[in-house]
């Protein structure tokens, strides 16, 4: 992956000015590269990684293992995309192992998620079974540790 994409992945809010400094490019060149990536879908979007506890967010999320019947011709793709399009689905992956799809679902409360699974997800044609695991606590998300008090202090001047 290009250095520019790596930097953006780590810190999407980094300014073009700063990127230009880091990569010895002009701000114009940076802006153009980003524009092309955005337009061709290499960069799909940007989001903040938020600690829900600090933010007072009481919504719940669950990881759902879904077994499905692959279709002739399309494999898992059509059904996976059908699932992924629901607003409640935050992430959806095809996985190897004991199940086929790993679906991450978010809802306002436990019941909302449960209702989505029982009424929408498991009733889809081709879905064979689901197993729902509610998230209890987050330790790390998208590369960021949920750890507010581990800072190290360097001496201000050292040889």
């Amino acid at each position, binding site marked *: 992956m290009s*250095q520019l994409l790596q930097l953006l992945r780590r810190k999407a809010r980094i300014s073009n000015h*700063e990127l230009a*400094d*880091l*990569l*010895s490019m002009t701000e114009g060149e940076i802006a153009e590269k980003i524009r092309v990536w955005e337009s061709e879908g290499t960069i799909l979007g940007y989001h903040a990684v938020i600690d829900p506890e600090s933010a007072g967010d009481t919504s719940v999320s669950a990881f759902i293992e879904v077994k499905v019947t692959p279709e002739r011709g399309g494999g898992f793709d059509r059904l996976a995309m059908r699932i992924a399009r629901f607003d409640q689905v935050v992430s959806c992956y095809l996985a190897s192992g004991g199940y086929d799809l790993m679906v991450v679902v978010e809802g306002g409360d436990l019941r909302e998620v449960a209702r989505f699974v029982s009424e929408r997800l498991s009733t889809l044609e081709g879905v064979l079974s689901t197993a729902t695991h509610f998230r209890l606590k987050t330790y790390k998300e998208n590369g960021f540790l949920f750890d507010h008090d581990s800072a*190290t202090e*360097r*001496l*201000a*001047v*050292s*040889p």
Partner: protein
Amino acid sequence: MDYSAKIARNVASIPRSGIRDFFELVQGREGIISLGVGEPDFVTPWHIREAAIYSLERGQTTYTSNLGLLSLRKAISRYVGEFFEVQYDAPTEVLVTVGVSEAIDLALRALLNPGDEVIFHEPCYVSYSPSIVMAYGSAVSVETSKEDAFSLKPEKLAEAITPRSRVLMLNFPTNPTGACATLEDLQGIADLAIKHDLIVLTDEIYSELRYDGEKHVSIASLPGMKERTILLHGFSKAFAMTGFRLGYACAPQPIIEAMMKIHQYSMLCAPIMSQNAALEALENGAPAVAKMRESYHQRRDFLVKRLNEMGLSCHTPGGAFYVFPDIRGTGLSSKEFAMRLLEAEGVAAVPGSAFGASGEGFLRCCYATGIDDLRVAMDKMERFLGTI
């Protein structure tokens, strides 16, 4: 009591470190942006910290062989063989030390008789001259210049060699200048060392931090040099392990044996937790090193560009994580410049004079600091320049 009469003369003769003076000024001040550090801004990669924790969990809290864990020495021998292209016998030619600093002390004490001359290039790391003095040697500095990008030129070295010269100390890439020696210069230096039968003590602690795709070459790898070279290296810089205090010396067996004699009675052995962490670093640390190097590279380019733009000319250092801008145009001494910059803008950088007389007129700026802070520091420095 008159303590001055109680302190050994050669210790009393060592002046206070310029870095320490400056550190005391900076200490306790709030909101300082520091370009004055001499260590990575990365925390040790987790897999290395985890290996240290695991070794504690397994109850590995004992002494090790005086030379260090054999498994670590084997890993060092393999790593040095690949990276520096010099082969050392793990059981007899490798000594694990408490940082390169200890290894320098051991080597000098093992080699010098009182009054023997040790040549080193300046500006240089703050410990070289005091370590020579503490080993009862005579410190002979060779000044390097901005025009030579602070590399040691063989012609200049030749002028410093006398019949009493015993040891030549080298440090490429250099702290504080980031200087690297060209292969041609290194060969010229090696020729002189052979001609005058010098032992070369080469501190290559920054060797993984070379930029622009340049490959580090150790003088130990040049023909005829292994037998007269003590290669010093460690984990502090490339692996961001300063606090682990772990380094090593590779040298012919009789020299390692002599160094070990001192090490066994003073230090006994390096801490086993650090040794276990170092083993993990050598075996699996390469990707983390590459990532950190890339990040330093980006910041080096930024700092060199900004400093040159604001009229503080500096060469592009080939290694380490320091730039060494020329501040002579301001008419201030490097100490005045650093003090006033600190007073006026709260930016700390170390006066070049702390690294020897030939560092006067320069400033050591470390770029192992976040890019945001680097930019603010550069903006402040530029504003400060406008006021003098």
